[in-house]
């Protein structure tokens, strides 16, 4: 099976050679962690602990009744020293539980294997383990995994797709996860297939990772209903709409979700975390992330405890070069630039990217010359130049008419614009305005 290239897209330089051969190594145990009660799409959690409480690794410290949410666990053992709003990678201040380590790294008794195999479990039991482990999409969006795995009964799901595209330049954490724990990735996939009752498991991997494709193929061959599909290397191949279309030719309808075409998507890292939750009872308290970019002295793939401060992670990589000037949480196409580094790494943090002066453009914004390069690269088939202008001028109706809400914010239009117009940014702004007007 060979996947078809989607329409549009761009080829930014990959830079993946910097870290793709570096094994994921455990980071230094942090002395203090800041664990925000909102690390996922959906309702924030309420703290279950108080200042002064002793907590252990894997102990649940935040939860909520809301369905679209995921509980949060202590990532180190120690003492809760504060519960207060703290800097968050989204730029907001978010209520966070701050834990000072006791240095013992003692695990909670809550963390234990379930005592029976996945074959013996009911789908509901598996789903409950996934929820209780606080697992969210680890590709970056951090959507609660158990919610995706609970489609309404009228949606006929027939395929589960694991996203191993990792189309963002620089990032290699998913790549390393597939190389280092292919068995875990497939185990998680099988468990999720059981939850959904689907027969087709497909792992999509971009062709720029031939070693990961080979490793995963060897693992998938042992299963009768799991295949690996190599994908053309093209950003944004990992966007779920592009991924699904490439793999089985189905187009997620505008405004719809993958489940509308019978598909559920999960990231390969999420799958592996689910395997660990099911087999070891281990909640999502650490994750692999790539620390890279020309501005970082020693790039690495690190297994980082959730809540570790980004500045400390960077120091572990021997700090930043003198000409480093931009720190991005996530990849260079969709990640968020940070004004300061006293922020925690979250469940959805796939990378820390440090760019240098020479990699940043300060060019002034010119008039659109209607070159239509943005039209040609837009994977959603929009006219970004028109949308950008509508956003710039605050024309909500025009933006809506040209389908601003369908924009997936992949950044391809801004990437190619020769007039240096921040099209994606303007579209994001006008989308927010459209949503605000709809709510009224």
């Amino acid at each position, binding site marked *: 099976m060979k996947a078809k290239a989607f329409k549009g897209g*761009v080829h930014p*330089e990959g830079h993946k050679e910097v870290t793709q051969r570096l094994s994921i190594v455990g980071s230094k145990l942090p002395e203090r962690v800041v664990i925000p009660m909102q690390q996922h799409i959906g309702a924030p959690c309420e703290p279950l602990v108080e200042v002064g409480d002793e907590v252990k690794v894997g102990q649940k410290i935040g939860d909520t009744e809301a369905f679209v949410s995921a509980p949060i666990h202590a990532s180190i053992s120690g003492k809760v020293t504060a519960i207060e709003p703290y800097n968050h990678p989204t730029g907001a201040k978010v209520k966070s539980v701050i834990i000072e380590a006791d240095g013992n790294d003692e695990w909670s008794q809550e963390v234990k294997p379930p005592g029976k195999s996945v074959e013996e479990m009911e789908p509901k039991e598996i789903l409950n383990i996934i929820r209780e482990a606080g697992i969210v999409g680890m590709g970056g969006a951090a959507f609660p995994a158990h919610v995706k795995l609970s489609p309404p009964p009228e949606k006929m799901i027939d395929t589960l797709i694991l996203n191993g595209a990792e189309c963002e*330049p620089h990032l290699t954490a998913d790549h390393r996860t597939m190389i280092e724990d292919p068995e875990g990735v497939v185990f998680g996939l099988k468990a999720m297939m059981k939850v959904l009752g689907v027969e087709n498991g497909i792992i999509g991997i971009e062709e720029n990772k031939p070693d990961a494709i080979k490793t995963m193929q060897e693992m998938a061959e042992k299963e009768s209903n799991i295949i690996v599909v190599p994908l053309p290397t093209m950003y944004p191949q990992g966007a779920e*709409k592009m991924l699904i279309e490439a793999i089985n030719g189905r*187009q*997620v*309808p*505008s*405004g*719809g979700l993958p489940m509308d075409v019978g598909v559920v998507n999960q990231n390969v890292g999420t799958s592996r975390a689910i395997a660990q939750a099911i087999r070891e009872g281990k909640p999502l308290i650490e994750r692999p992330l790539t620390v890279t970019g020309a501005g970082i002295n020693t790039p690495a793939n690190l297994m980082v405890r959730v809540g570790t401060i980004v500045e400390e992670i960077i120091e572990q990589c021997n*700090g*930043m070069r003198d*000409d*480093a*000037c*931009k720190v*991005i949480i996530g990849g*260079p*196409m*969709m*990640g*968020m*630039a*940070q*004004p*300061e580094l006293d922020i925690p790494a979250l469940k959805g943090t796939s990378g820390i*990217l440090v*760019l240098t002066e020479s990699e*940043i453009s300060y060019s002034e914004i*010119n*008039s*659109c*010359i*209607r*070159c*239509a*390069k943005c*039209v*040609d690269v837009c*994977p*959603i*088939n*929009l*006219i970004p*130049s*028109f949308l950008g202008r509508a956003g710039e001028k605050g024309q909500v109706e025009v933006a809506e008419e*040209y*389908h601003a809400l*369908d924009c997936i914010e992949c*950044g*391809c239009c*801004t*990437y*190619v*614009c*020769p*007039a*240096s117009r*921040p099209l*994606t940014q303007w579209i994001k702004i006008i989308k927010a305005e459209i949503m605000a007007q709809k709510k009224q």
Partner: protein
Amino acid sequence: MNSKLVVSSSPHLRTPETITSIMIDVIIALFPVALASVLIFGYYALVTIVVGVLAAMVTEAVLKMKTDIMSDGSAAVTGLLLALTLPPNAPLWIPAVGSACAILIAKHFFGGVGNNIFNPALVGRAILVMSWGTLMVGGSDFWPVPGVLNFSRNVAGADVETAATPLEAEIVAMGTGWQELLVGNVTGSLGETSAIAILIGAFWLFYKGHIDWRIPGGYIGTVFILGMLLGDGFYMDSVLMTGVFHVLAGGVMLGAFFMATDMVTSPVTPLGRLLFGVGCGVITMIIRLYGAYPEGVTFAILLMNAVTPIIDRYTVPKKFGEVKS
């Protein structure tokens, strides 16, 4: 560590391409065309081109009140394109006036680069054609047979001082071989005669991704088909070769690859680009076969420029996952 971090919205990467780099690519693409005009018509062609380019650049610099006459390179492109549409022996005030009008009226009256509705070079040319018609349109002293650095003098009318452009009269045309039209060793505007030079330049623009097949394909395809259907098969007594003649003779090649493809004044939607090319072809052929002017490329493209916004409006591509309601 740097004490100040740069914060901006994603994406954080950009291609190195800029408006200036695109303009430089267009100038590179026009180099073979300009070279061919000098080889065919002589050094005076070079003087005409230099005057046209300089006049455009100076006009732009004056209007922007900046001393940097290179600016973003777009004025140089306009001046170069305009010069390439001029008669080989035009007096030098012609490129100067044409370029100045192009930059002032067609470009800056509309708000400068990116905001003009009409192709500036063609507006400049249209003003010249309407103001000094006898000089601009064939049959006058300003249309010599190919000049100093001629490859071959065996062109129809080579024994007289001036010759009509190939479209001027079928009689002349019938004496012009298609190979001559391909190489460009015929009379005509400076840059329009050599199809080979134009194709070499166009290849560079394709390679760099600045033009796609839709506009030139729609334009040339339409001219070819209408030439076969409506051209009376006058050329070489062949319907097919009459279609070829209409493509190679006159300004269609230059217009299709370098004028109609002007980014600012052509549609942004893929279907729109194709329709735009087809429209240019239809209007060109109507003017050629039934109009008062012997050649219709300039006015065909300008008319299509005028309808570009409405083409864009009605050819919005189907978005991903569009549900029919």
